[in-house]
């Protein structure tokens, strides 16, 4: 089971809700039940939720709108819980990516016939396999000749403590940022980073939402990809919108699904603006609410597609979610999970080098992703060792 899949029950227990949106009239479109409709048609409710300029919750909601999740976790109330949930999903995706990268690093090196026998690498690959739930690889990599390193044993114990709830999120956060092991070699040194980091962080952030997750439908959904608080999965919008995930990993079919979504979203946005009070209309435009809903929904779909082993679909959703005006920065439309899912889908479709483009966006705001970026980079280098590069002008 992927770490993302392992995390889902924990998250869904909190994201699912038996309540309904507070919309008094029968909705002609499923989108009428969305948080966007509530905010635009009832701006007073939005104002009440966000609070006045000096409200302690306000910075948290602003941070959540900007997809500045780390910032939102430092604020009180619902935004922090929501941000922790987002971070749990983010690190779940990164954990899957990390596990894929480590196992590929091991097997690719092994297939070249040059796997070092005096390295801690097989130990780290085995640990990644274990976190991925890949018991066959775990067992096999434990038997590959390797060097034991006490730093790894110590780190495993630290991860276990966090995962069992015996150590805090702060402890988990402190484990990243520096290499785990450095091995001298004749022409330099090998630097290995912690393969367990993101799985532990996903669990630690998930535990942060175990209690006190917001009950109010607007608090649960605002600035999310959900269109109904009763959605039982992050991509619950599929059925309500009459859309269906293609059964095979067909990027074109998935692009067509997004086009179908847009065919509903575009006229609905026009209609919403036409009937909204002035304050709601201003929110719709200023905060790019429909675009935000669309982007976040597509990211949710991409995460789901990765979970069902449809990386080409995931990549199609991610590419169509991206705000191409700002392709290398986190914005209200470009969330950290968008880049994580883009990297993961690229890696799974053989585009290791392209995965690095997406990861590079995360390294600044999330220093704990440095190790993953380096590991995927090492894989890209390894995969290119036997190639002659090509270059052209323009």
């Amino acid at each position: 089971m992927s770490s993302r899949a392992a995390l889902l029950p924990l998250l869904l227990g909190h994201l699912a809700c038996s309540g309904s949106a507070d919309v008094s009239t029968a909705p002609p479109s499923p989108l009428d039940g969305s948080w966007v409709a509530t905010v635009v048609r009832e701006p007073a409710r939005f104002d009440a939720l966000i609070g006045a300029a000096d409200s302690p919750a306000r910075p948290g909601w602003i941070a959540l709108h900007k997809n500045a999740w780390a910032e939102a976790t430092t604020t009180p109330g619902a935004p922090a819980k929501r941000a922790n949930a987002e971070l749990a999903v983010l690190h779940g995706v990164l954990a899957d990516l990390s596990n894929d990268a480590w196992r590929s690093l091991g097997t690719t090196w092994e297939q070249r016939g040059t796997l070092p026998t005096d390295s801690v690498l097989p130990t780290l690959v085995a640990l990644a396999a274990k976190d991925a739930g890949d018991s066959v690889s775990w067992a096999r990599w434990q038997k590959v000749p390797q060097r034991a390193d006490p730093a790894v044993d110590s780190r495993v114990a630290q991860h276990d403590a966090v995962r069992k709830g015996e150590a805090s999120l702060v402890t988990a956060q402190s484990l990243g940022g520096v290499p785990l092991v450095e091995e001298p070699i004749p022409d330099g040194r090998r630097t290995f980073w912690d393969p367990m980091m993101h799985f532990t962080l996903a669990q630690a952030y998930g535990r942060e939402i175990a209690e006190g997750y917001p009950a109010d439908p607007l608090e649960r959904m605002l600035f999310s990809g959900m269109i109904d608080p009763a959605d039982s999965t992050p991509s619950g919008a599929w059925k309500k919108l009459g859309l269906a995930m293609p059964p095979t990993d067909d990027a074109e079919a998935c692009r067509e699904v997004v086009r179908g979504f847009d065919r509903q979203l575009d006229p609905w946005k026009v209609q919403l603006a036409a009937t909204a009070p002035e304050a709601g209309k201003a929110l719709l435009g200023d905060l790019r609410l429909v675009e935000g809903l669309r982007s976040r929904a597509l990211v949710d779909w991409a995460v789901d597609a990765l979970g069902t082993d449809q990386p080409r679909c995931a990549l199609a959703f991610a590419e169509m979610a991206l705000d191409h005006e700002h392709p290398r920065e986190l914005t209200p439309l470009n969330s950290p999970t968008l880049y994580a899912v883009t990297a993961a889908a690229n890696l799974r479709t053989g585009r290791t080098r392209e995965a690095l483009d997406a990861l590079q966006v995360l390294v600044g705001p999330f220093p704990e992703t440095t190790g993953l970026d380096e590991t995927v980079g090492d894989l890209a280098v390894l995969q290119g060792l036997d190639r002659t590069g090509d270059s052209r002008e323009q």
Partner: protein
Amino acid sequence: MTRSWMLLTLALFALPATAANLRYAEDQAPAIVNPLFGSTMAEARVNELLFDGLYTDNQDLATTPALAASGELSPDKTEMTITLRDDVTWQDGKPFVANDVVFTIQAMQDKTTLSTEAGRAAFIKTATALDEHTVKLKFARPESRPEDKLLFKILPAHAFAGTSVKRTDGFRNKPVGTGPWELVKYNEDNSVSFTTNGSYRTPVGLSEMTMREVSDKNYQAKLLLYESLEALVRVLPRDLAMLQNNRKVELYPYQTNSWWYVGFNATHAPYDDVNVRKAMSALVDVPSLLAPVGTGDLLSGPFVKSSPYYNHDVNPVANDENAAETLFAAAGYTKVGGAWSKGGKPLTVRIAAHQSLESAQEVAINLQSQLQSAGLTVNVEFLDDAAWKGRVWREHDFDLILSQWTFDRNEDVREQFHSQGARNFTGYKNPEVDALLDKARDAADPFVRKTALREVHKRVHDDAPMVFLWTLDSYAAMSVKVKNVVIHPFYFFTFATGWQMK
């Protein structure tokens, strides 16, 4: 009506689409269609339509046989016997045979050919045809996965008089390949028409393709929106917002391993002096040059920031006029009346840029302004393709060049910075960098290569053979009528046989 709008109007009515004719835009039509001499991305894209290699990338970017049917590596990894497909014919009807492979390798290696691809066949010591469909390759040293290096395009031996091939050979206008499309004709409006190769081994979804030269990049996006094109291979950053809001168009991000630079001609004075190069680098305000082009990452060396080889400990050169003055003084220059001179001779600079480089005019003019305001005399010239190839590539007749390099996912800068590199036309030479590039090439451990190339980044930065400018995001834009689009991150059209139009 302005001339610009007249051009646009003419373009709108040129070469109408047919049901399965994909029309794509290039800034400039390829000057030459011969993979032995490919130097631009536009040429690489056309070559991808017309020619095959022994191996190619599959959609997961793993090496897979193309003209090869199978390959067997000797136990000591110094020889490979390749069995070729026996069902392939050239577009002129002649059968594809082993001698074509041998010819291509020998032509690439023939020093009189002056192939820009010579480096890609350097690992092969000999190539021998064992029979019509079997080739034996002997390597200069053991190769773990030689098929990963056998992606270069194969040419028909019968179309050439010998392995010493000239750029001016008639083949450049009448190419014959084994690829999915064949070149039908060059049209009067500089477009090029292609039609499906009827004998291609797999179905081809697009029966026709048309490469249209649209030299004013500002119009490419408009032509796409007006449905006079179906594809843009590279979108201007400033057009992204307009295109992403149009539901008739979809954007496809692809590779980003390309960077802009201002290169110094280190083969002659005063640019053979590192102090002069560094002084001029310090006079360049890179963010101001980038502003009119769009958003991008500023760089400190010959890799993009997301590269595993980028050395993040090295910062981009700061725009610092005081530092420049110190460096000019160290090089023997004095500033008199606001102008830099040495021995009474003013420092005069010629900047050359390829006329088809997107936004090059704005960048070059702004660069000229920056350097002139600091006391240099600067002339700018925009060269057409023939002049660029002649003066820059062959004769090294330039002071500074403004250009852009694009790399595949291996980001192999050896050809640009090794003293023996085929694309090192700036004349950069540093024995330590040569040794590091050799070490990177020969590495069996990824950490050795990564460490060596990060050091190359630092050394090259310190030597300042170029002012490293920025990398821009690469986007293709396609009409939604084009379905099943999968883009190769470098060669673009590798998977285009699966594209369809509805």
